[in-house]
């Protein structure tokens, strides 16, 4: 599915290509991925999409690397210059050491060769090999995404449905206003306000991922780090105090994300429901005397959910990529936080790896959503 990608800002999405409030989404899906042809085998389709994914990743790496190569070597070496005391001739020596002056294709193939060998490079911002940095930072982001995505979707669906059903009544107006306000709030602003009020004033919901004591336990000996996700690991290690502590720290960022991003789902769900409600078969069912509730839940909602599924996938991918600001403000050291520092310090190995990883997520999620879509909507044929 190559329907509009979200304008990535901690998942605060805007679907620029098309009006998300009607089935224009489905139009584009149909025209680009699917054809009204005979059933090709599912496996065939998946294989083709995977090949396509590899091509896209290759293209992404080439594009990003070329852009980074436009940056002069004197700036790219700065990631290794940790002190102002280092004299210029030593900096020159560092440029030579890391081969930053070599022609761009040479540097690209050197990087590519290393990747194939499994050497992802050393990240100056993580102060560790890139893969180690990833293992350290990724679970933090994943945890927040896993907690916020379902909440965002559920809240969005719920309020969107309510709005559609009670169209033009006070509840609907309130929800529409809520949606558009939530849509307009800057991520960083809401986060800072929440922190100021809850943490600064009330003293609850501190930033960070764990309290000091919990941190000692988690990073000390005797802790089994299975997934890296604090809440899950806490359960595995049967430490409910750590579990609650982690949950306590994740609450505020989650609330932040829910307020901001459910707005989009709300709007989408509402208009999607309205469209479905206007369909003939619904009016027929209602005329025939079926109770409202049954009609809404069985017919309407199922059909209205389709675009929401699409958006959910995009939301997930978007959140993964766009956690930069939430993580910076709430001092959660995940890949978003890492990427902000890598970008500011031009830590090329880290940037390249993350771009590849997020590209992979994006294309992968798209594939999964397409497959789900095809499974649900009988009108769609995979071509």
């Amino acid at each position, binding site marked *: 599915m190559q329907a509009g990608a979200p304008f990535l800002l901690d998942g605060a999405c805007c679907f620029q290509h098309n009006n998300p409030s009607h089935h224009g989404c489905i139009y584009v899906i149909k025209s680009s991925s699917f054809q009204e042809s005979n059933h090709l085998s599912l496996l065939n389709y998946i294989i083709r999409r995977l090949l396509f994914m590899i091509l*896209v990743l290759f293209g992404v790496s080439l594009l990003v690397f070329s*852009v980074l190569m436009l940056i002069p070597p004197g700036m790219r070496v700065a990631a290794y210059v940790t002190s102002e005391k280092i004299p210029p001739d030593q900096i020159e020596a560092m440029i030579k050491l890391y081969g930053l002056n070599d022609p761009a294709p040479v540097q690209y193939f050197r990087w590519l060769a290393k990747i194939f060998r499994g050497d992802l490079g050393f990240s100056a911002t993580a102060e560790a090999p890139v893969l180690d940095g990833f293992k350290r930072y990724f679970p933090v982001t994943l945890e927040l995404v896993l907690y916020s995505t379902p909440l965002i979707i559920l809240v969005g669906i719920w309020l969107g449905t309510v709005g559609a059903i009670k169209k033009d009544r006070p509840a609907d107006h309130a929800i*529409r206003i809520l949606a558009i306000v939530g849509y307009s709030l800057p991520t960083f602003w809401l986060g800072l*306000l929440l922190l100021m009020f809850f943490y*600064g004033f009330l003293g609850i919901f501190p930033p960070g991922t764990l309290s000091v004591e919990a941190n000692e336990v988690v990073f000390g000996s005797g802790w089994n780090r299975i997934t890296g996700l604090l809440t899950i690991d806490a359960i595995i290690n049967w430490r409910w105090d750590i579990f609650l502590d982690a949950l306590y720290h994740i609450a505020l960022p989650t609330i932040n994300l829910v307020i901001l991003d459910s707005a989009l789902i709300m709007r989408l769900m509402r208009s999607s429901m309205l469209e479905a409600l206007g369909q003939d078969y619904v009016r027929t069912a209602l005329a025939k005397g079926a109770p409202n509730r049954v009609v809404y839940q069985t017919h309407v909602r199922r059909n209205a959910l389709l675009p929401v599924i699409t958006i959910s996938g995009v939301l997930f991918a978007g959140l993964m990529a766009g956690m930069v*600001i939430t993580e910076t403000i709430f001092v959660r050291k995940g890949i978003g936080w890492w990427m902000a520092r890598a970008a*500011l310090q031009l830590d090329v190995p880290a940037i390249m790896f993350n771009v590849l990883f*997020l590209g992979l997520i*994006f294309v992968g999620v798209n594939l999964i959503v397409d497959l789900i879509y095809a499974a649900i909507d009988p009108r769609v044929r995979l071509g």
Partner: protein
Amino acid sequence: MSTEVLTEDMKTQGPSRHPGWSEFVFSMKRLFKNPLTIIGLAIILFFVFLAIFAPILAPPPRAHDPFLMPHKGWQIQPSPPSAENPLGTLPSQYDILYGVIWGTRNAFRIGIAVVAANLLVGLILGSIAGYFGGILDEIVMRIADIFYAIPILVMAMALVVAIGRGLSSVVVVLIILNWPTYTRVVRSEILVVRNMDYILAARASGASHLRILFKHVLPNSIFSAIIVASMNVGVTVLIAAALSFLGLGSDSGYADWGAMVATCRNYIVGPAENRLAYWYLVFIPGFTIALFVLGWNLLGDAVRDVFDPRMRRR
């Protein structure tokens, strides 16, 4: 329903009325029926007022660079609202009210510049891809696919660091990273339109490609793009503010809303006697951004409701 409206108008104004005009009147009527539109428009007009009358409302201390905010002294700790600084100050005593007023100009510049440029690029590339199809289409679309897969914020940050920070860099970078969306919109509209009968007729009668493009295809496809553009101004300003917040916009001391919000990070917790002491710093610049974006979003929504052919006659 549509015929009813037309005949209504024709009855009152006579059959010589150009349908374009009555459509326009209809649009305007619908636009202003929506209370949210009025609010959105009011907000935007308020900011337009601030932008235009900035030199009078907030006389710049340095004529050659009005975006430099005034400050009394060098004390780093922010001062609360007072007679001298009605909205308080930032760290290093920069006046918040001044920053809010002059920052409006920057916000407008960014929003409009990025969206307008993107629209133009999208029209050109979308036309090429959609109208001519074939291999040109493939190339453009595949490159667009690649761009979609790139995480925007990270790329934007790296690019701004490379080019050099500042609001013009932010504008350039956002234009570069956003072109696929508009291209796609225009292209899909063109795909639909180009197979229509009247286009085929024009081809058959020997009209050149360019003529067909400009006279027939584009005018009918442009609407979607304009709708998308109008809805996008708000989000563009949000992303630009985010980049400023992360340190890539204007230097400190310049009127840049995002940068102003960033200065509050060390002052979330006030001193022991009053933990909320710096509330004005955390609240006001961000609120300005939110209000501005809200205005554009409301307007964009209303425009879409009215002008989108599929939604128009409900």
